[in-house]
């Protein structure tokens, strides 16, 4: 378990809810996960899915808003939150996806939860083990 005194500074970045932000978010969180001792590949993929969900589903028919990525350590876990200021969780019949995003997140995380905060939008909170050797196997 990492001594929190040695922990990297919590990460917080705000991004436009547009496709290129997926790439930027996953790159930033992968660096943070590596520094924290988590499995960077798992964290990177899960965050890509979470940010893509916001980009594709949170602002349909509206001007693209903001996606906020936060990552911090709790002592035995890396906790990542991806939140947006969109219209909340709605099914998208035109999405055309395979519905793989949340399924992948479920496979890659120790736990995750989706909520609709009082301030609006959607928040996806994911927890990852800190010891990379304990990463989620195939």
């Amino acid at each position, binding site marked *: 378990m990492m001594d929190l005194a040695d922990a990297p500074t919590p990460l917080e*970045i*705000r*991004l*436009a809810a*547009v*496709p*290129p*932000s*997926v*790439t*930027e978010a*996953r*790159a930033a969180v992968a660096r943070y996960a590596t520094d924290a001792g988590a499995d960077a*590949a798992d964290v*990177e*993929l899960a965050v*890509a*899915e979470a940010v*893509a969900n916001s*980009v*594709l589903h949170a602002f349909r028919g509206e001007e693209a808003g*903001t996606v906020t990525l936060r990552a911090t350590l709790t002592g035995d876990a890396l906790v990542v939150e991806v939140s947006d200021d969109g219209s909340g969780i709605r099914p998208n019949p035109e999405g*055309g*996806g*395979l519905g*793989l*995003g949340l*399924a*992948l997140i479920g*496979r*890659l995380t120790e736990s995750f939860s989706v909520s609709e905060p009082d301030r609006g939008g959607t928040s996806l909170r994911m927890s990852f083990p800190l010891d990379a050797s304990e990463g989620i196997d*195939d």
Partner: protein
Amino acid sequence: MTDSGPARLNHRIAHEDGDGTVIATVAFDGDLDLPVVEEFRAAVSRERLGDAGAVIIDLSAVHFIDSSGIHALVSVWKELGDSGRRGAIVVAGDSNVERVLGLTGLLEELAPVPDHATAVASIAGER
């Protein structure tokens, strides 16, 4: 708010004669995520493939793929089949792409092969 950097996915197309069948190989290099899925689809479009009777989608130099990329890959793969073309997908063993295909349960359906030579042999074996 942070500016987003450019997405990175390069590709090249080569045609070869596979015992009377024109085989088009579209080899990708980079990351296959949401910002570049339309580039990916365009690279394997009917216009780009010409009269090729078989197509090899080479992802051996792709370092990252997410569900957006997987969806685009499956969509293109089905379109190739619907157009009557044979095909093969090249994925490096123990790579991120192979792992994500495994996580999504698509390894058996897409049946990727590890290199170009195996892909050509696989296409020849379909005749």
